[in-house]
Every structure is written in C-alpha cells, then in structure tokens.
C-alpha cells in the first residue's frame, strides 16, 4: 500500500517535470497559433524557423561561440589544471578559491561585471566580448573536470618517462595527456553545453547585432507566445539530449555532480 503510494507520488513529480516540456514539443506541430486546441499537424513553424534569418544568424553565433569558447577554455583549463595539481597546499587553495568565484557568484553579477569591464576599457561589445565571457565562465568547469583525473594519476608514470629519456614536455604529451584525456573531453563537452545553455551572461556582454539563440528566445518570449519558439525548443531539446547521451556514455556517474555545480550558477 505504502509502496503504491510512493510510486504514485514519484509518478506525479515526473508528470510535473515532463508535462510542460512534452506539451511544448507536441504543440510545435500544431497548426493553430492558439495553444488551447489542436487543429492539425503541421511543420510550418519549423519552416518559418529556418526561413527566419535572424534566428539562423543567432544559431550560427551560438554554435561558433560554443565551439571556440569550449576549445579555448579546454586548452587553457587543462594546462591550468596541470599547474594547479603541482602546486603546494596554500597556493593551491588560493587558486582553487579563485576558480570557484564564477561558480558561486550569481550569473547576473558575473555578466554585468564583465560588461562593466568591457565598457570601461572601451572594448566594443559584440562577438569578441561574448566569446571572452564564455571562455571565462567555462574555464572553472574544465579545471574541475580535469583535476580529479590528475589526482588518480600514478606519479611514477611521469617519472618513468623522464628516466627513459623523455623531455618534460614530451612526457606530458605522450604520457600524462592520454591518461587524463577522459577528463579533458568531459570538460570540453560540459563547456560546450554550458555555452549553448547560457543566457544571463550572454545577455549582458553582447552588443547590438550579435545574439545567441537564448537571447532571441528571451526577447521573443518577453513579447508573448510564439509557435516558432516551440519549434526551436524541440530542436534544442533533441540536440541537448544527444549531447547528454554522449557525455553520459563517457562518464556515467559523475555527470550529476557536474550538472549540480553548473546549474548552481543561476
């Protein structure tokens, strides 16, 4: 009896979580603009979506920023993680505390403080400022993904490589890097997802003419309901699901912890 009660409670919570998303997905195929009634299947919102030049441009920006920012953040972050790993206790603690600032700070503060910096230094707000901001908030997550792998690493491996005549750089490239690769890839994918997902920081650090999909969704949703957003949501949801599937195949178990940290941001 109690078992049944528990199961139905869980079912209700799942319904609460999924019903809005499912309705959004289903109604992206609805012919009528009013969401209340179903008037027939259509793909016209998807067609309109792909014909909307503003949205296509935003999609392009979103993808380019996500690819570039996650790649750059992965390079800088992996190097940083190796450096941090080799630091002494106190120094490590200080650097880790700095690393946690963007994770703990509210997104809105990170966003507006970056905006202040760009305007203060007369840096033009636009594509580059957006890219720099995305790299900034991606960096901690790359480091937090790579550091655990470095901790698991056998110290002797590196020393063995040196004993066998490898230069330090060669040893890092051929011995350490392959060992920590799973963490690096996880960090890359996480950074990529976070970059696509971000709204608040992009909202503050972008200039006129450059928008990401999130910014478009926000400005459209602010004006009310628009079936094109439903179509866009469906596509984005499917894309994120695919990405998530890949990440989860790689690191079953650790991804919850990451998400927990990342979602904390806003």
């Amino acid at each position, binding site marked *: 009896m109690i078992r049944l009660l*528990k199961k139905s409670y869980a079912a209700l919570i799942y319904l609460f979580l*999924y019903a809005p998303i499912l309705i959004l997905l289903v109604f992206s195929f609805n012919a009528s603009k009013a969401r209340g009634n179903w008037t027939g299947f259509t793909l016209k919102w998807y067609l309109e979506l792909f014909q909307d030049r503003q949205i296509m441009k935003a999609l392009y920006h979103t993808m380019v920023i996500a690819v570039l920012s996650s790649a750059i953040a992965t390079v800088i972050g992996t*190097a940083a993680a190796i450096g941090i790993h*080799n630091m002494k206790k106190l120094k490590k603690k200080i*650097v880790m505390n700095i690393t946690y600032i*963007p994770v703990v700070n*509210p997104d809105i*503060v990170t966003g507006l403080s970056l905006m202040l910096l760009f305007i203060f230094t007369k840096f033009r707000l636009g594509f580059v400022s957006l890219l720099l901001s995305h790299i900034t908030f991606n960096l901690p997550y790359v480091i937090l993904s790579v550091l655990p792998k470095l901790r698991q690493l056998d110290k002797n491996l590196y020393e063995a490589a040196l004993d066998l005549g490898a230069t330090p750089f060669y040893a890092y490239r051929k011995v350490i890097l392959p060992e920590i690769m799973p963490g690096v890839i996880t960090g890359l994918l996480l950074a990529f997802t976070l970059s696509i997902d971000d709204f608040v920081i992009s909202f503050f650090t972008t200039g006129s003419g450059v928008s990401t999909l999130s910014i478009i969704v926000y400005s459209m949703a602010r004006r009310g309901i628009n079936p094109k957003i439903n179509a866009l949501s469906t596509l984005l949801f499917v894309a994120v699901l695919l990405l998530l599937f890949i990440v989860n195949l790689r690191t079953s178990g650790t991804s919850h912890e990451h998400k927990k940290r990342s979602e904390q941001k806003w």
Partner: protein
Amino acid sequence: MKKYWASYPYLLWMVIFIFLPLLLVLFYSVTVRTEEGVRFTLEHFQRFMEPIYLKVLYRSVKLAVICTVICLVFGYPMAMVLAGNHFKRKQVMVFLFVMPMWMNFLLRTYAWMTLLERTGLINAFLSWLGLPSLNLLYTEEAVVLGMVYNFLPFMVLPIYSVLSKIDKSLIEAAQDLGADDVTVFRKVTFPLSLPGVFSGITMVFMPAVTTFVISRLLGGGQFTLIGNLIEQQFLVVGDWNFGSAISMVMMLVILISIGVMSKYEKENEGSGLF
C-alpha cells in the same frame, strides 16, 4: 614536477576577467561622478534603503523562501522514494529526474507560459469543463511556480545523494532497539540527511533570489525582483553606480546564505571558498 607556469595563462585570465570586473563593481558602488571628478560616497547604499527598494529586496527574499520551502516539502519525499528500493532501475529513474534540467531554463520557463496563458491549455481545459477561465499568467504565484519547476531538482539531488549513502545498519540497529518507522525517521534518517537538506536549501535559494528571467517572463514585469532591479539599472536607466551597489547587496545576501548553510554542510568536498 614543477609546472606551475602551465597555470599562469589561466591565472592572468582570471585576474583580468573575474577579479578586475568585480573590483569595478565595488568601485562603482562606492563612488559618484561629479564635476570635480570621482569621489567616494555611500549614497547608493543609502538610496537602496528607501522603502521602494527595500520592498523589492523583501519580495525577492520572500518569493525565494516560499520557493525553497515548497521545494523542500515536495522534494524530500521524492528524494526518499528515489533513494529507496522501489524501482528496479534506480539509475534510470535518477537520470530521468535530472534530464529536464539539461533543457535550457528559458525554454522550461517559456513552457509554463504556454500552459498558463489566457488561451493556454489549462484555461482550455477549464472552459471544456464549463468553468470560467482564470488569470494564471503574470501573477506572483506563476513566478513561484516557475522557480519551483526550475529548481526542484537542486533540492532533490543533494538530499538523494546523502540518503543513499546512509549506512543501512544504523537504521536496522534502531529498528532492533524497538523504534517504529516514524521514530527511525525522526531520530536517525532525518538528522543524518541534514547536510543534504542544507545543501539543497542553498542551491535552491541562491538562483531563486537572483533570477530576473523567471520573474520577467512569468510575472510580466509587474513583480520586480532584485535581479530585475539590477538589470534595469544597467540596461535601461544606465545608473551603473546604483546598479553596482544593488549587486553588492545581492552578493552579500548570497555570501551570508552560503556562509550560514555551509556551517551545517559537512563533508562538502570541493567548496573551498568558505
């Protein structure tokens, strides 16, 4: 392995893009530009003490607290169900629970707009039943609903992870000593799960108190929260000094809530900041 230098580009990056910007916020919050130049002042903080702004702060904290309480009340049982042995494929259930979080939160919030609006599904259902339609969207309740919907997993996951780590023999020992289910929960399970509860409270309260998107989309701009106030000051009014001062207040609220909560949060690996 003396490879500190590998982290120097990163440190330089963080100084420029994290440290300096925060210093700028601090600088703007305590200065004012006059004809003679820039001078130190606390007038922006003083201005924040005016009733209209305090009311915004009060509303933000109030809605965030309501949201946190609702998440706790509904999330704790859910965490217990997930941590118990009710499902054959527990991992899948947990995964299903986490999955909606990966959808962009703007879209999750927007999904509720389509449900709550005048011609939305809920009102369509009501009129199908022959009931009058309700004003659901652009209310304070809608804002709280949107927060709960977005942040419920942050309450459930930490509690779930603590609950599933509890040593089962402790519960069995309590039962052997004659405790009934209620007593076991009250005296053993719940106290042991407190770190998860505090962690969950922090993780729900923080985003709830700083949001400006949920209140804008589901509240329609009528329910200004502290996040909206900051956004307005920077992007509409252009008063960076006052905006910075409010940001400082917001950071203070966050720091205090983290500080209070992390005192109770044991063995929280990684959060070295506090």
